[in-house]
């Protein structure tokens, strides 16, 4: 699988990868499962499931807690994953990888931990396309510190209105938090230039990479952000594990919000001091088997290459857009140019409500997401309360999209009889 372009075409047209995903063997009644909800959680290949089980069967200790062999092995596995993730995500030596529960917890860690550095009237810049995970924690922070939230608007075509950017950013901006890829619009945002501008006014930059990692090559160093948050379970990895990658000088500014075992340096009856980064942000026992399994998910992605997966996503997105646009009364959310998008397409069928569509599709064995996809303000801005989303993983191919299109026509038949 050397050539990413050839690999992506093979994945798109005659997908050999499916056999590696046990849950794709499920049948929905008398039909095969067609999984188009990758953006909610990716399915996991057998080797990742096995890796988690193997850890429990073999090492099964608690890292950094004891001198016996199992604990020592668990420590090596745990810290091995940290190094592997750092290399994979291209974190430079002056950055660290913190294990969290998920992307949401990683963002909360920053939004809550930074509170002491935010004062009344300081500004936090978000975009109108944020997932609630990268919105609500900042609302809480703003309320607590009497800070002001400013939004970089989204245009009608679903891109950031960058012409307004100079007026949104100011000397008062302390944090810019934005998504790399929108989980509704699919839009890929120009993080590098935004981070550069934000740093010029002294603001910190947090990037929500939940929908980009595992879909395209993501380099923490190249993006130029101070913080990067993502979840293992959207990248073929286990649930219950997420990551906060941060520059050390930025992480230093965060007060740990969860305290207790393993995150301390010295505890007396009166006081406690914190362990060095990253340990100070990892209070209590982690999801060790998930940490142990994640390198196998990285291996899986690297076997095909993130670049090939990106091309594969774009081929599928292009095909999905083309097919959907042939149907009357379907409105695509987000840019119409697949090159500007990640591997998902949300749409509004003005004839059949998303829930009704999703129920009928489910009866046909097709799993899509229907609702606001944790982006209520964005939906409201677009004049919708819900939409239907199809999202793609490495196991998706053109036949899945054909089935979706066919399903939409069947749903319309139910509603026009």
């Amino acid at each position, binding site marked *: 699988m050397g050539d990413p372009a050839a690999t992506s075409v093979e994945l798109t047209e005659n997908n050999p990868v499916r056999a590696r995903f046990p849950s794709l063997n499920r049948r929905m*009644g008398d039909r095969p499962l067609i999984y188009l909800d990758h953006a909610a959680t990716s399915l996991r290949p057998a080797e990742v499931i096995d890796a988690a089980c193997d850890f429990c069967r073999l090492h099964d200790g608690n890292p950094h807690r004891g001198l016996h062999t199992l604990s020592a092995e668990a420590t090596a596995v745990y810290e091995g994953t940290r190094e592997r993730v750092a290399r994979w995500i291209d974190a430079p030596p002056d950055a660290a990888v913190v294990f969290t529960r998920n992307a949401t917890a990683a963002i909360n860690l920053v939004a809550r931990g930074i509170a002491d550095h935010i004062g009344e009237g300081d500004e936090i810049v978000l975009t109108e396309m944020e997932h609630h995970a990268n919105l609500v924690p900042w609302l809480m922070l703003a309320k607590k510190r009497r800070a002001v939230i400013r939004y970089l608007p989204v245009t009608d075509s679903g891109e950031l209105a960058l012409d307004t950017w100079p007026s949104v950013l100011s000397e008062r901006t302390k944090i810019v938090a934005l998504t790399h890829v929108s989980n509704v619009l699919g839009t890929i945002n120009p993080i590098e230039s935004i981070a550069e501008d934000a740093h010029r006014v002294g603001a910190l930059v947090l990037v929500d990479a939940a929908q980009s990692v595992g879909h395209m090559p993501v380099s923490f160093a190249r993006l130029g952000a101070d913080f990067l948050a993502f979840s293992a379970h959207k990248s073929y990895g286990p649930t219950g594990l997420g990551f906060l990658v941060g520059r050390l000088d930025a992480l230093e500014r965060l007060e740990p919000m969860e305290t207790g075992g393993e995150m301390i340096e010295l505890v007396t009856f009166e006081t406690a001091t914190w362990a060095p980064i990253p340990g100070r942000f990892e209070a209590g026992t982690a999801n060790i088997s998930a940490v142990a399994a994640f390198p196998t998910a990285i291996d899986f992605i690297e076997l095909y290459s993130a670049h090939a997966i990106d091309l594969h996503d774009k081929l599928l997105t292009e095909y999905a857009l083309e097919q959907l646009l042939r149907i009357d009364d379907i409105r695509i959310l987000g840019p119409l140019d697949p090159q500007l998008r990640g591997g998902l397409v949300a749409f509004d069928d003005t004839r*059949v*409500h*998303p*829930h*009704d569509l999703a*129920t*009928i599709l489910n*009866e*046909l064995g097709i799993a899509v997401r*229907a*609702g*606001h996809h944790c982006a*209520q303000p964005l*939906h409201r801005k677009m004049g919708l*309360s*819900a939409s239907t989303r199809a999202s793609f993983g490495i196991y998706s191919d053109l036949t899945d999209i054909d089935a979706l299109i066919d399903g939409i026509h069947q749903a319309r038949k*139910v*509603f026009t*009889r």
Partner: protein
Amino acid sequence: MNFDDLYRDVILDHHRHPRGTDPIDHPHASFFGVNPTCGDEVTVKLEIDRDKVVAIQVEASGCAISTAAGSMIAEAAVGKSFDQFQDLTESLKQMLRTGDPLDDPNLGDLDALIGVHQFPVRVKCATLAVTTALQAFKIYMKKHPSEARRELTIEAG
């Protein structure tokens, strides 16, 4: 797969031509309900006289099941006392839970929602309007305890 059991003709008819849409300008009680997981919304306004619903306005935005259920509630609610409305709510919920047809004349067209029983994730769509209407009614009862009591004493007498 036959979808007609879920999307029965009666349901599609209510969805396409919802009842209870005439505006009530001075409601005695109103309540806004939302289904946070999916974003369906409904506002119910009630006009109540002597503890009985005399007019109801349902403004629903959402899927066919939730809008149809709102329309059916609008029909079924008129003339009901608080207790009757509470019973109706319970009957509907029970039918959706058990899948057993109910022989409750209070339900009106609501019995057509029985197919929703097979789709547990959609039960909330079918109950949003009725629970919202019940909340509105409860607010009224809280604000007018005397009237409710008067009704009770009249019945007792």
